[in-house]
């Protein structure tokens, strides 16, 4: 029987190794898999490359992972938010590498990685500093840059509903990077608020088909990053 359900976040992230590339879902706190990230902090894997849209807030979740010096490099579109202090400090101290990518290019690179497309052309960033050193090419009188598909060893993703096959539903704008990150990683690890029996998710409404998911762990009441930041909490 296919059963991708894992008992705890700790077990779910156990195989993440030093030097791994890890995609982490979320746009700000929406969709950020905070329990999986905290489990990864407990687990301690180092020298990670993290692919994510932001770099976290305060001293919890993604920011805490970075603060704990587990991240050597980030590939990111917006590593600066209202309450992000950790990343700026480490970046200015030269202690973390940053590959800055336009948000749509980041999304398309992840999607391409998952779809077996090694490279594609996009108009975003043409004639800007972010296209310096990149190949460009003209199609129909318009200039485009060549961008490469992104893959990862692992993805950490937050879902709303899952079944033992790994089929996923998301909630509102927490969907953001989850579906494409699941496709682009060797092992997609998902925390879901609910786990249901196969068939309880209407096949017409599945957002991530189970083939893209390797592990599912139930986290019924996930922490709220913004609440923890307001309370000035830190992890661990």
């Amino acid at each position, binding site marked *: 029987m296919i059963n991708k359900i894992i008992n705890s976040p700790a077990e779910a992230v156990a195989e993440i190794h030093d030097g791994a590339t890890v995609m982490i879902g979320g*746009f*700000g*706190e*929406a*969709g950020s898999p905070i329990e999986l990230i905290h489990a990864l902090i407990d687990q301690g894997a180092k020298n990670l490359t993290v692919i994510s*849209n932001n770099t976290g807030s305060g001293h919890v979740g993604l920011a805490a992972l970075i603060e704990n010096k587990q991240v050597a490099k980030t590939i990111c*579109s*917006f*590593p*600066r*938010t*209202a309450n992000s202090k950790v*990343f*700026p400090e480490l*970046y*200015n101290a030269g202690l973390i590498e*940053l590959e*800055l*990518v*336009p*948000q*749509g*290019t*980041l*999304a*398309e690179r*992840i*999607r391409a990685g998952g779809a077996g497309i090694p490279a594609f052309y*996009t*108009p*975003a*960033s*043409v*004639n*800007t*500093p*972010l296209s310096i050193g990149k190949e460009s090419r003209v199609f129909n009188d318009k200039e485009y840059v060549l961008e490469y598909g992104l893959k990862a060893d692992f993805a950490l993703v937050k879902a709303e509903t899952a079944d033992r096959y790994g089929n996923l539903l*998301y*909630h*509102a*704008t*927490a*969907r*953001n*990077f*989850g*579906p*494409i990150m699941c496709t682009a990683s060797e092992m997609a690890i998902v925390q879901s608020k609910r786990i249901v029996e196969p068939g309880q998710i209407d096949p017409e409404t599945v*957002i991530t088909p189970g083939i893209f998911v390797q592990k599912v762990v139930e986290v019924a009441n996930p922490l*709220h990053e*913004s609440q923890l930041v307001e309370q000035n909490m830190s992890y661990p």
Partner: protein
Amino acid sequence: MIKTDIKIGWSRAEMAQKVALDIPDGSYVNLGIGIPEMVADFVPEGRELIYQTENGLLGMGPVPEEGKGDRELVNAGKKYITAIPGSAYFHHADSFTMIRGGHIDICVLGAMQVSERGDLANWSTGAKDAIPAVGGAMDLVAGVKRIFVITQHVTKHGYHKIVQECTFPLTGKEVVERIYTNLAIIDVKEEGLYVREMAPDVSFNYLQEQTGAELKQ
């Protein structure tokens, strides 16, 4: 640094209203963070616009009542929003299919600088110690059909924002169609910057003084 009379010109709300009046009924619109968000408050009665937020919602509704926000229903500025009946959620690759694929009619963005050819700089001052962060701005200017900029005419410190050549790193080249400032509405055309409308009590000479590029009438 130039001398600016802070008593004349449109308010931020008036600027947003000017933009709102220029958006045709039925348009699909992406509003940038900051003043652009105010545009939605001034859409004339009888017009229906659909707002896209690039983090994954088509059909963004108004801000929820205080305390009724959903932490996982936010806009690109990470503020609580609502969804209208008839809205749709989607992931980031599908969101930027809308943007890069030319499906959004109008995007309203803030600016640090706009050049006389419509180059836009709005993501980085290029300062060495600034944390670079770009978000979706480069994708928006590359993909959306019409780019409107809404901005104060000059900086807080009195420097020109409308210039011959941007000195800040570009977001996109030759992308801006129209500039809405506290002093005027300016069209970016192939032959240069054309003043479309001036705020009350603003003279053309005064406007030209406040502008780092040649204006035409």
